C-alpha cells in the first residue's frame, strides 16, 4: 500500500504541490487526473524519487520512500513509465527491455519476462533490433510500458500514457492496463484524459493548481457535477 501524506514539493523556490495526500491500496487502479499543470506529474515524479518533498512523507508498505534515492524504487517494486516515454533512443527495442530488467531479481527472470512482454505487445518482437528512437509514438509507448514491466513491478505508475496517441490505440492500451492489473499489479494512472481514465480506474483523485480538490470512487467522480463542469471539453 502506498501512502502519500501531506507533501509540499518545490521546484527550486517555486512551490508546485500543497499538502497533497493520496493512498493506493494493493490491487487497485487509481486515477490522478487534472488539467495541464495541475501537479499530477510532479506528484508522480516525487513518488518515483526524482523529486523530494520539502515536508510530508511517502511510505510504501511501511518503508519511507521520500528518504530513498530514485534508483532504489525499482528494488521495492515501484516502477514509473515517465511522461514522454523517455526511452533510450540509440538502443534497440530489445536492449531497452533488457535495461528495464536491470535490477538483479528481475535480471534472472529476464528471458521469461521478455517473452511475456512480446506476448502482450507482438509488434515489439517484430522490431526487436530496431533503435527505439525510430519507433512510432504508439510503439514507443508500448515499449515504455513493456520496459517497465521488465522490472516485475508491484506498483506501476503511468504518467500521461495517452499523450499524443490516437484514440483507438489508447483504447487498446487500456485493455492492456486492465490485463496487467488483473495479473496482480497495482496501478496509478496520471492523465489529462479524464473520462477514459476514470472509466478504467477503481478510485480517483482530482488535482488542480497543485492541490487535491476532489477524490472518491471513480464511477461517482465521473458523474459528479464538478468534473463535468470543470472538464467539459477535455474528453
Amino acid at each position, binding site marked *: 500500500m502506498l501512502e502519500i501524506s501531506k507533501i509540499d514539493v518545490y521546484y527550486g523556490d517555486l512551490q508546485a504541490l500543497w499538502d497533497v495526500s493520496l493512498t493506493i491500496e494493493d490491487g487497485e487502479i487509481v486515477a490522478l487526473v487534472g488539467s495541464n499543470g495541475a501537479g499530477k506529474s510532479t506528484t508522480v515524479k516525487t513518488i*518515483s*524519487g*526524482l523529486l523530494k518533498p520539502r515536508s510530508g512523507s511517502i511510505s510504501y508498505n511501511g518503508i519511507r520512500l521520500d528518504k530513498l*534515492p*530514485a*534508483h*532504489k*524504487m*525499482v*528494488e521495492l517494486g515501484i*516502477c*514509473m513509465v*515517465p511522461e514522454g516515454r*523517455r*526511452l*533510450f*533512443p*540509440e*538502443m534497440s527495442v530489445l*536492449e531497452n527491455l*533488457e*535495461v*528495464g530488467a*536491470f*535490477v538483479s531479481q528481475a*535480471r534472472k527472470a529476464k528471458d521469461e519476462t521478455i517473452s511475456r512482454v512480446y506476448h502482450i505487445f507482438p509488434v515489439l518482437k517484430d522490431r526487436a533490433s530496431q533503435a527505439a528512437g525510430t519507433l512510432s509514438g504508439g510503439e514507443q509507448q508500448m515499449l515504455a510500458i513493456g*520496459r517497465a514491466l521488465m*522490472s516485475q513491478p508491484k506498483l506501476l505508475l503511468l504518467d500521461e500514457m495517452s499523450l499524443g496517441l490516437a484514440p483507438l490505440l489508447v483504447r487498446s492500451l487500456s485493455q492492456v492496463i486492465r490485463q496487467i492489473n488483473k495479473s496482480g499489479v497495482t496501478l496509478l494512472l496520471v492523465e489529462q484524459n479524464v473520462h477514459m481514465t476514470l472509466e478504467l480506474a477503481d478510485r480517483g483523485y482530482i488535482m488542480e493548481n497543485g492541490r487535491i480538490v476532489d477524490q472518491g470512487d471513480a464511477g461517482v467522480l465521473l458523474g459528479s457535477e464538478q468534473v463535468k463542469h470543470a472538464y467539459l471539453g477535455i474528453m
Partner: protein
Amino acid sequence: MIAQVIAYGIVVGALYGLVAIGLALLFGVARYLNITHGSFMMMGGYVSFWLFTLWHVDPFASVPLVMLVMFLIGLILYKTLFSPLSKLPEGLKINNSMLITFGLLWVLDNAGILLWTSDMRRVTPSYFGAMFEIFDVRLPFIGLGVIGLALLVVFALHLLLTKTYFGKSVRATTQDWEAAKLMGINIDRTYLVTCGIGVALAGVAGTAIALMYSITPGGGLEWLLIALIVLVLAGLGNIKGILIAGVMLGLVEAVSVYVVGAPYRAAVGLAIIVLVLMFRPQGLFTRRTRGA
C-alpha cells in the same frame, strides 16, 4: 615514400585513438572533462617504466597491471573531486570539472617532477629497434604492437558496452540519466566505474607513449592536446568514432609534416580544431548538432 608516410600516420593515429578514448568515455558518459588525463597517461607510463626497469616486465604484458593501478586512481579521483560536483547544473559542472582537473594537473605534474625529476624516460625492451618490412614500407615492431593494443582496447570496450549489463547501463545513463535512474541504475556508481575505466585507459596510452616516445612528468599536456583534437574531430561525447578520428589525425599530421615541416605539426592540430569548430562543430561522426 608516400606509403611510408601513410604507414607511420596510421601507427601514430592508432596511438592517438588510444590516447583519446579514455577522455572521450568519461566526457561522453558523465560530462566531466578531465584535464588531468594527460598527467594520468604519464603516470601510467611511469608504472610501466618502473615495472620494466625494476622487474623486467615486458611493457605490453604490464598493461593489465597498469590498468588496475590507474583504475583505482580513477575511482579515488571520482570520489574526491567529481562526486561533489554531481548536484550542479550541467554548465557549471563541466566548468568546475575543468578547473579542478586543471589544478590537479598542476599538482600532479609538479609532484611528479619532485619525485622522479623531469628527465625523460622511455621503455626500451629487447625488440625495441626491430622493424617489419611489408611492400617497401618499414614499420617498427613496437608500432605494430601499439596498433594491436589500440584495436584490442577499442574492441574490449565495445564488448563491455554492448554485451554486459554494466555496459548497457552505461549507455542508458549516457542517453537519458533520469530514465536510467528509473530503471534502478545507480548513476553515481556508473559514473564512478566509468571514471575508473577512463583513467585506466589513460594509463594504457601512457604505456604506449613510454614505448614509442618518452615520458616526463610535465609531458602530459602535450598529449592532452592530442586527445582534445581527436575528441573535437569525432564530436564531443562520441565514443565510437574515436579510433578512426585518431587515425585521421595521425594521417593528416604525417602528410602535413611532409609538406610544411615538423616544427609546425602542432599548428596543424590547432588548425583542425578551428576548422571543425567553424564548419562542423558536432564533429565528423556525430549526427545531431550538439554544438550551440
